[in-house]
């Protein structure tokens, strides 16, 4: 029994170390990290195989939240149950958390310095650009036909002009999706609910959308 506990703690410690190391590499969003995860988890440690990686990518991309945290939770759970998931998520978040602190401390110290303001303004423009890149990537997987195009346009218009809470849109999305698919099937039209991806392995792992 003691041996078992020791092994368990050892496993949790190893999970912690791996994800703590991966954490800082999530600059610019979690998909940048998928390659690192593959290298560490599949190739170096042999903890998961390629097929499980595929499961992981699709689950972590479709669940709410950041891809990095979701991937960590998935792998941690597979390896060490709920405790494993918890440890992995803490480990991947901790480095970022500390870096954010350092940054906010530094910015507080130099807050009123004109050039710091200027740098932040420059970054503001860059963040807008990164959001546009994210939108473009999401667009590619989401807009498959006229119905999805209209859906995206209507939700954008509602957001811009009515101040609707995004919660209702997110809630409505799946309902409308199911209705549209049912309607189309009833009329004998075929619906493609997912983007058909090229068979290349690396294309499959490529960012569908950004964090």
């Amino acid at each position, binding site marked *: 029994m003691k041996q078992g506990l020791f092994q368990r703690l050892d496993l949790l410690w190893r999970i912690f170390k791996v994800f703590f190391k991966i954490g800082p590499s999530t600059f610019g969003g979690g998909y940048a990290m998928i390659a690192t995860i593959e290298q560490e988890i599949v190739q170096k440690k042999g903890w998961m195989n390629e097929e499980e990686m595929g499961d992981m990518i699709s689950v972590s991309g479709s669940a709410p939240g950041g891809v990095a945290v979701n991937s960590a939770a998935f792998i941690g*759970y597979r390896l060490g149950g709920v405790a494993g998931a918890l440890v992995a998520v803490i480990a991947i978040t901790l480095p970022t958390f500390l870096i954010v602190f350092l940054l906010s401390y530094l910015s507080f110290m130099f807050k009123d310095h004109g050039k710091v303001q200027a740098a932040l303004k420059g970054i503001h423009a860059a963040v807008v650009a990164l959001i546009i890149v994210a939108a473009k990537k999401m667009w590619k997987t989401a807009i498959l036909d006229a119905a999805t195009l209209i859906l995206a346009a209507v939700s954008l218009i509602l957001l811009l002009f009515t101040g609707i809470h995004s919660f209702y849109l997110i809630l409505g999305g799946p309902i409308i999706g199911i209705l549209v698919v049912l309607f189309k099937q009833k009329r004998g039209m075929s619906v493609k*609910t997912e983007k058909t991806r090229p068979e290349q392995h690396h294309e499959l792992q490529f960012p569908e959308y950004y964090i």
Partner: protein
Amino acid sequence: MLWQLFIVFFKVGLISFGGGYAVITLIQREVSDKGWIGNTEFQEIVSLAGMAPGSIATNTATLIGYSEAGIFGAIAATLGIILPSLMIVILIAAFFLRLQGNRWVRSSFYGLRPIVTGLIIYAAIHFGLSGRTESWLSWSMAGMLLICGGCLLLVMKYKVHPFGVILLSAIAGIVLF
């Protein structure tokens, strides 16, 4: 206060489909409704959040938590935004992995993805224009457009790493403004 921070970000975390960018405007709305943080300050926080690794939404949560209630606030907000992801991923991994090919699930995502696209486009517009005090024809606005356009070119055409783009734009900001 800690509990409030936790709850607000828990709600945000629960619906942050498509990663963090879609919920930036939601976070802004929640914190300004509560009277926590004004627009200019929010904009600075998001810029800072973009500089650190990790999800921009999570980093924003950490910074807002910190500015509202110190280190414990930061912890409460971060836990709040991460916990829903953790729970949902565990649930999926434990029970629903088989549902992946299910046609209801596929239809749901078929409808959800365009909406998330709309949310992200909205975030770009909203965040791009927020905190703007000058008129369209000003040096500051031109500089912003220049940097933004340059970043788009670097990321999309030359595949420059997002962090490189952030660093370059900080330098560009110092030079231009």
